[in-house]
């Protein structure tokens, strides 16, 4: 679907991890898995970038917020974390 102009960036179709593998459970105690969905500055990565579907993104965001409240994940991150 490249237009008349040459496409500037190569876009790969992203698939939601949780839809692809239904055995994955999103839980606030699974910090290592949630780390994949936060940036270096501990921000939640938007779904346009991570590729997660709407339902699962909502779930991920909720679990990240739970993890933050019990100090598993930082609210504001630093570069070294």
């Amino acid at each position, binding site marked *: 679907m490249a237009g008349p102009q040459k496409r500037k960036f190569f876009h790969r179709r992203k698939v939601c991890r949780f839809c692809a593998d239904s055995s994955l459970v999103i839980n606030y105690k699974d910090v290592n898995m949630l780390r994949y969905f936060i940036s270096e500055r501990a921000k939640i990565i938007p779904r346009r*970038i991570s590729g997660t579907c709407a339902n699962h993104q909502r779930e991920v965001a909720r679990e990240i917020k*739970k993890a933050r409240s019990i100090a598993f994940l930082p609210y504001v991150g630093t570069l070294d974390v």
Partner: protein
Amino acid sequence: MNHYETIFIVDPDTPDTDQEPIFEKLKSMIAETGMLVIFDDWGVKKLAYEIKKKIRGRYVRLDYCGNGDLVDALERIFRLDFRILKYLTILLGRDVDPETLIIEEEEAQVEVEADVETKTDPTENKEDTSDSPKTADDADAVDAENVVDEQGAEGVVDDEGTEDADKTAQTETKTETETEE
């Protein structure tokens, strides 16, 4: 009865002799009106951010059944006690039977132990953990299954490989997009 999970952080600088009474009190409170399923001590862990100037905390997880009044009472204790840095209670299920939960938990424990045994045994196939309850009489059958398992395992490994590649690809695209912005 509802099923709850409470995680709380105890100040690690508190001497052990002071910490034990807190736990005992919580346990007895739960035993009065509810039922304790698991008392899980995760030990001292690093906190993601400072709480009351502490960078470390002792995490304890309580898995119990009870009603809302019990949660209120427990949280009241957490709030009043200065040695408890933070707590979080999550509702896991409504109208559950505590007996079945305890039985499930015991079964899970047994499974974990079986897994550990098979993993530590070098002669046993790693993929074989699901078949661990079988007796030695079934050894031949297990062997035959192992072959199948290996084949299946290869397929799984391949899948994982591609998935990993996808992941790295995703991260690449991600960084690209970020720089673009």
